[in-house]
């Protein structure tokens, strides 16, 4: 038995023994995700237990070094873990911006002290990290940010504000792009700093969207003290870290357009709503649009797979994350538009409908922001045109 086979056998056994049955059922809604953090309320004892057990093995962050509490797995082992979890339909024990965003940035750019301080709580799901990037007057032009960290000797004093922080109201700590040098060119005087959101002077306000929900917040800084050892990477060189993080984010968002596990696919919903005639969906024009959507969706899934394979084979992907972000979000928006068309007048009900909460029209309205947040579609197309196609400025 090879080492990998043995790893698979052990993993399977451990998962069978430790993954609570309730954590093996498909997600019913976003509320089923475990985000962790100080303010998080576990939905069930099983959810808490599942996080605790996985965190203990470091399998909330399978490939992170074990010295920080990570799983210390190599790529093959991590793939096996993923396959074995999928085999029994195990839920992710933890979703968090710590795992997806600031963690990888710390591993790449952080000082040893910062890694030791922040990585273990991320792995254990103890801290919910919030992102402080966009500002009210710096949308796509992120580098023109104004939030100012003034050097006060042993610390910085932070003033200004950030918008579009996802779930900022749940945030415990923030990773935040701030201007530490007002003399330098706009990309040069920026640093990425970390601070506890309970620090005096931090105010969080929800931003209500057209969907009636508030998944984002605005954060206002009034003389907030930031320790000097909480700078990730070099001072004034935060733009390098930020670009790394943005690329990471885009790749994550690129998958949005794909049918997710547990969600019924478009054509099945269409058949339920519209019925069939002579064995095909009784709405020829919508049927063609659904087929085009499903083909593109399949093609994007294969493209993500191909890029992963190319990356494994050593190719450098770079700006293709912009393409994925663009295509994935446009695809999700097409999906929501089709769901509205399928739903007809039922899709207009703001408080009723399938789940009794106006989910359909709210999800559709929410999706309109996909091509804006995380860098607009226009920005992604600019990046593709210039960095991949080499077209002139």
């Amino acid at each position: 038995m090879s080492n990998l086979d043995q790893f698979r056998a052990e993993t399977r056994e451990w998962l069978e023994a430790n993954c609570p049955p309730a954590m093996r059922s498909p997600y019913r809604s976003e509320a089923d995700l475990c985000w962790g953090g100080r303010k998080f309320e576990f939905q069930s004892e099983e959810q808490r237990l599942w996080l605790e057990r996985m965190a203990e093995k470091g399998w909330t962050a399978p490939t992170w070094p074990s010295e920080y509490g990570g799983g210390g797995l190599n790529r093959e082992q991590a793939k096996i873990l993923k396959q074995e979890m999928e085999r029994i339909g195990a839920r992710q024990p933890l979703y968090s911006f710590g795992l997806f965003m600031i963690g990888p940035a710390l591993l790449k750019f952080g000082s040893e002290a910062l890694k030791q301080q922040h990585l273990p709580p991320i792995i254990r799901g103890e801290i919910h990290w919030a992102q402080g990037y966009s500002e009210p007057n710096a949308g796509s032009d992120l580098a023109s940010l104004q939030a100012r960290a003034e050097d006060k000797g042993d610390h910085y004093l932070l003033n200004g504000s950030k918008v579009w922080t996802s779930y900022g109201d749940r945030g415990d700590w923030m990773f935040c792009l701030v201007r530490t040098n007002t003399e330098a060119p706009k990309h040069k005087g920026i640093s990425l700093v970390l601070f506890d959101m309970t620090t005096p002077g931090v105010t969080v306000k929800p931003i209500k969207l057209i969907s009636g929900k508030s998944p984002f917040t605005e954060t206002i800084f009034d003389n907030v003290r930031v320790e000097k050892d909480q700078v990730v990477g070099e001072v004034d060189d935060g733009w390098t870290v930020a670009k790394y993080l943005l690329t990471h984010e885009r790749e994550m968002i690129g998958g949005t357009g794909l049918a997710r596990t547990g969600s019924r696919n478009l054509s099945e919903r269409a058949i339920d709503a519209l019925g069939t005639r002579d064995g095909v969906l009784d709405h020829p024009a919508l049927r063609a649009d659904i087929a085009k959507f499903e083909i593109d969706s399949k093609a994007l899934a294969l493209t993500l797979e191909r890029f992963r394979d190319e990356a494994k084979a050593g190719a450098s992907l770079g700006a293709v994350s912009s393409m994925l972000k663009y295509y994935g979000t446009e695809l999700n928006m097409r999906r929501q538009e089709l769901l509205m068309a399928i739903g007809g007048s039922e899709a207009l009900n703001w408080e009723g409908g399938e789940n009794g909460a106006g989910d359909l029209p709210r999800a559709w309205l929410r999706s309109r922001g996909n091509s804006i947040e995380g860098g607009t579609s226009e920005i992604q197309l600019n990046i593709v045109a210039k960095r991949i196609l080499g077209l002139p400025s």
Partner: protein
Amino acid sequence: MALILNEEQQMLQDAARDFLAERAPLAHLRELRDTDNEERLSRELWAEMAEMGWPAILVPEEHGGLGYGYGGLGIVLEQTGRTLTPSPLLGTALTGVAALAAAGSGAQCAEILPKVAAGELLLALACDETARHDPGFVSCKAESSENGFTISGRKVAVHDGHAADLLIVSADTGNGISLFLVPADSEGVTVERYPVLDIGAAANVLLDEVRLPGSALLGPLDGGGDILNQVLDAARVGIAAEMLGLAQEVFERTMDYIKQRKQFGVPVGGFQGLQHRAAELYAEIELCKSLVIKALQSLDEGADDMAELASATKAKLCETAHSAANEGIQMHGGIGMTDEFDIGFFLKRCQILESLYGDRYFHHDRFARLRNY
């Protein structure tokens, strides 16, 4: 007839624009929502509109109306499309009056139309039974009983149904469809009100053995199908006029925004990527204007190709207004996604108007069918 407004129509347009700017700008919609107005309608505003004569525009002069025709009413609807003003104009002043004008007896018209013209009676057309518009599908049944009819069934997504005093209901009468005037407070009628996404409202209507007098029949027995289609075509064109106003307003607001909003030190409206999309949208909106004015004129003229023209117009407006509303949000960027900013209301209202009496898919299909392919 020339495809331009005449002098009388231009005056009507100016008056409507001025009135709405003062009495019912977009802030009015927001206020109705935020004050939890149950009906999502201001009765005071409707009274003022009645003073302006709007519910009377389509009412023939002999019944106390102004007789300005569809051309006149379309102008007002285009303006309310710009301000997204909630009002019973579509359900009452257009659809309701069109139905009575098309099929009402002398007595019915004499009784109802003056009240409509005075703004005292609200009507609603209850013709759909499924989530997708399909006026030919009628499982609601009306049976003859002594001195009248007994009607049972369920109608869904009745526009203005949550506020109407009098419902116009389609029902199967054995050898065809017939239309009936059903007071909303009749015994056996249940109006299930629900909020819709622009924070207006609509209703499902349950009819449980509702007893009606013989005088409730609107138009010939079993002959309501053609009348219904005729009324629906008028409504579709009216909706298109409202969508035209909506599309123009959201487009103009967006152009204004991208001219002044700066990014990377220059106005975003200077980027050719946005400019080409804006120019394409401009072209589509110009085409929409032509369809709407022609369709309104054709309604007044009783043109032969009315059905085809109505479907062409509704289909085209569904596509174009939707694009305009989507681009409105996209070109505004993050701020366009916030409830605080107004631009998102255009997309919400647009979706409602698109769905009402047939979306683009419905009308592409119908247009092709009417052209025999």
